[in-house]
C-alpha cells in the first residue's frame, strides 16, 4: 500500500479550440497510506477526470502524480499497481469466480498454493465462499462487483484501489450490505482507497476523509464530521447533509452589545465565539443551521422570545425521520427542521422554532466566519 499525492494538477480538454474546458483547476491532494478517501461532487465537477489522472488513463495538462513520493505522471496505468473498480463490473465470463480472483496472481506467476491461500482470504472477507465455482454470468451485478473488488485487491503489492461510482448497478435494497463488505475489505487490508461518487451517503459512510470538488476545484478535504459541522462555505453547507443546511439571508443588527442575525422581524443569536469577528457594516450575510439542530415546539412558548413562530408547509419522510419545511411568520424564509418519524403534525400547522446559538454558523459573502 502507498501514499498517493496529486500536486498542482490542471487539466484542460480540447485545449486551444473553441470547446476548451478547464476540467481540473490546480488541485493538490494527498491520500495518506492505508486510508479510505472519497471524492465527492456534482456531475461535471471534475472528479472522474481526477480519478483517471491518478490511475494513469489520462495525462494531466500540468502537475504531477506521486506514489510514495515517486513521480509516476509519465507512467502507464499498468506500472502504477493501482486497482480499479468501475461503474459496471468488469468480469471474465469465461472463468468462474475463483478463476477471476486468481487471474492477476496467475498472470504474475504466483505458485498455485499461495494463490489458493490468498483467494480463500479474499473469499472469506467478501463472503464469496458459496459462489467460488459459479460462473459470473449467473450472479447478479452486486456479486460481480464484489468479485471485481476482490480481484483488484488480491495482489499484495497493489498500491491503491480506485472506485468509480461502484454502486450504480446495485439494487437499492442490497446497497447496505455491499457498502459494508467494501468498507470491511478496505479496513482489513488497510488499502489506500479513493471512492468517486456524487452520493454523499456513500462517500461519508465509506471514507475517513472526503474531498469535495466543484467546477474543477477542490473546495474542502476533511472528515465527514468536520464537513458537516464546519463547512468552509455555503456550498458545502448545502451539499453535505440530506437535506442540506438551512442557509438564510440575514442582516446584522446589534442587540445587548452583541451582533445578531436579523431576518425580517426576527432576531437570532449567534455563538458568542464569533461575536468579535462579525462586522456590523456587513451585507451579503447568511446564517446556516442544520435541520437536525432546529428545535421544534408545538405549544406557544408565550414569553420565551428565543422561539420564532412559523407555519408548516410540507411534511416529508426522509431517511427515517420527518423533515418539516416551514416558513417563518411575516417572511418568505423557509426553514427545514428534522423531527422524529412518529411526530404527528399536519401541513398548515403553526409551530415555534429555536436555533440554539452554538449550532448556528455565520457566513459572510458565502464564506464561513470562524472564531480566531
Amino acid at each position, binding site marked *: 500500500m502507498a501514499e498517493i499525492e496529486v500536486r498542482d494538477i490542471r487539466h484542460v480538454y480540447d485545449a486551444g479550440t473553441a470547446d476548451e474546458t478547464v476540467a481540473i483547476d490546480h488541485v493538490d491532494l494527498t491520500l495518506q497510506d492505508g486510508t479510505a478517501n472519497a471524492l465527492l461532487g*456534482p*456531475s*461535471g465537477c471534475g472528479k472522474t477526470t481526477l480519478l483517471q489522472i491518478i490511475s494513469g488513463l489520462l495525462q494531466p495538462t500540468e502537475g504531477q502524480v506521486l506514489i510514495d513520493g515517486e513521480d509516476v505522471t509519465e507512467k502507464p496505468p499498468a506500472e502504477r499497481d493501482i486497482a480499479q473498480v468501475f461503474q459496471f463490473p468488469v468480469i471474465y465470463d469465461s472463468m468462474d469466480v475463483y478463476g477471476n480472483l486468481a487471474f492477476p496472481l496467475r498472470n504474475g506467476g504466483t505458485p498455485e498454493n499461495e494463490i489458493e491461500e490468498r483467494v480463500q482470504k479474499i473469499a472469506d472477507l467478501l463472503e464469496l465462499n458459496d459462489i467460488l465455482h459459479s460462473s459470473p454470468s449467473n450472479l447478479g451485478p452486486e456479486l460481480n462487483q464484489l468479485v471485481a473488488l476482490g480481484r483488484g485487491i488480491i495482489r499484495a503489492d497493489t498500491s491503491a484501489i480506485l472506485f468509480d461510482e461502484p454502486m450504480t448497478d446495485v*439494487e*437499492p*435494497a442490497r446497497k*447496505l450490505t455491499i*457498502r*459494508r463488505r467494501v*468498507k*470491511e475489505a478496505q479496513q482489513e487490508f488497510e488499502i489506500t482507497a479513493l471512492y468517486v461518487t*456524487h*452520493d*454523499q*451517503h456513500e462517500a*461519508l*459512510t465509506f471514507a475517513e476523509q472526503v474531498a469535495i470538488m466543484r467546477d474543477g476545484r477542490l473546495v474542502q478535504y476533511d472528515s*465527514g*464530521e468536520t464537513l*458537516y459541522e464546519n463547512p468552509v462555505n455555503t456550498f458545502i453547507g448545502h*451539499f*453535505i*447533509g*440530506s*437535506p*442540506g443546511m438551512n442557509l438564510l439571508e440575514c442582516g446584522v443588527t446589534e442587540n445587548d452589545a452583541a451582533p445578531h442575525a436579523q431576518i425580517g422581524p426576527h432576531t437570532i443569536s449567534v455563538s458568542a465565539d464569533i461575536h468579535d469577528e462579525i462586522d456590523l457594516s456587513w451585507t451579503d450575510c447568511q446564517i446556516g443551521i*442544520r435541520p*437536525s*439542530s432546529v428545535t421544534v415546539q408545538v405549544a406557544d412558548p408565550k414569553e420565551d422570545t428565543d422561539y420564532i413562530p412559523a407555519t408548516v408547509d*410540507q411534511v*416529508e*419522510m*426522509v*431517511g*427515517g*425521520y420527518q423533515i418539516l*419545511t416551514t416558513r417563518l411568520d411575516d417572511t418568505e424564509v423557509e426553514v427545514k427542521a428534522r423531527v*422524529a*418519524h*412518529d411526530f*404527528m403534525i399536519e401541513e398548515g400547522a403553526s409551530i415555534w422554532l429555536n436555533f440554539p446559538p452554538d449550532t448556528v454558523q455565520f457566513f459572510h459573502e458565502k464564506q464561513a466566519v470562524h472564531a480566531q
Partner: protein
Amino acid sequence: MGIRVENLHKSFGTEQVLDGITLDIPDRSFFSVVAPTGAGKTTLLRIMAGIESADAGTVHYDGEEMTDVAVQDRSVGMVYQEFINYPSLTVRENLASPLQVSDENYSAEEIERRVQETAEMLKIDHILNNLPEEVSGGEAQRTAISRALIKEPDYLFMDEPLANLDYKLREQLRSDFERLFSEEDTTVIYATPQAGDALAMSTHIGFLHDGNIIQKALRDEIYYRPRYLPVAEYLGEPPMNIVPVTLVQEPTSTDRYFEVDDDTRIPATGFDALSPGETYHLGFRPQDMTLTENGAEASITPTLSFVETVGSTSTLHMDFQGREIYALHPNPLHLETGASISFALDPKKFYVYDPEAGDLIAAGDKIPSFS
C-alpha cells in the same frame, strides 16, 4: 378521475408477472407502486397507461373502460428513467412538440403561453434556448417531465424518473414533486424500488409482491401499519427489525415476555390477546431503539458489526442471534466494532406478525392507528 384496474393478469412466457391485480388509484393522488427491481412495476404501469396489453383484466379511467383504448387516445403523460428528449430541438421546441403534433390545433400564442408556464413551474425557463446536450442531467429530466406535463394530462405515469440523477438533484426534485403535484389536478402514478422516494413524495403507496398489490394505503398508514412482513421489511430506511420470538408467561406472575432464547426476554406488556407458548415475529423500527447504559434495563444486547455516520445520524449495523438488525441514532456515535450494545425497547412501539401467514396481528399502543 381515479384509475381502477380489475383482475389484471400478465405473463411473459412461463413467468407470471401480474397475478390478478385489482386496485383503485384515487383521483389526484400521488400513488407510488413500490417493489424491488423485477417485480413487475413497469409492466403494471405500462398496462395502466395503455402501452402494453394485459392477458386478462380491465382498466377504467374515471369510471370509463379504457382497456382497449390506444395510448394516444388517452389523456396520459409518460416519464421514463432515461431522459427522452429530441436532441436536435431546443428545450423550448421539445416542450412545444407534444402540442404541435396534437389534434387540438393549439394556437402559437397558446403554445408559447403553456411552454412558459410549464418551464417556470419546473424551473427550466432559463434554458429554453439550449439544446438538451447543453443542459445538466437534472435539467434534461425536468425537460422530459415538462414535455409529459404540457398537455395537462389527467394521468401522469412516471417510471423511476429520478434513478439516473445526482443525489442532491434527486433530493431537490423529490421535494419539488411533492409540492408541485399537491397543487395540480393530475393523478400521478409513480413506480420506484426506492422506499425513501415513495415515503417522501406519495399520498398513497401500493406494495407489489409476488404479482399482487398486497397492501395499498395512505402513505402514513402503510408506513405505520404495514400489514404484512414483506411491506414492513421494505418500507423503511433502514428497514424494520424482525426477530422470531415465543410468548412466555411466568406461572407465578402476570408478566409476559417475548423470549428470543434462554438469555433474552423482551417485555410483552400490553399484548394480552397473544397466546403463551405461541411463536411470533416481533418487529420494531430502528428509530425506536434507545441506547441504555444500564444493563439491567436492557431489552436486547446485540453485537456491533458496523457503524455508518452521515451528518448527525448514525446507523448501527448489529448482529443479534445471527440476524442483522439496525438501530438509528440521532447523534453521531463513536463505538468499537465488536462491542455489545444495550438497548431498551418500548413494547408500545412493537409490531407482532404471524410467522407463517406474515400478517400483522398486534401492534403497540403508540403505533398510530387509522380507521
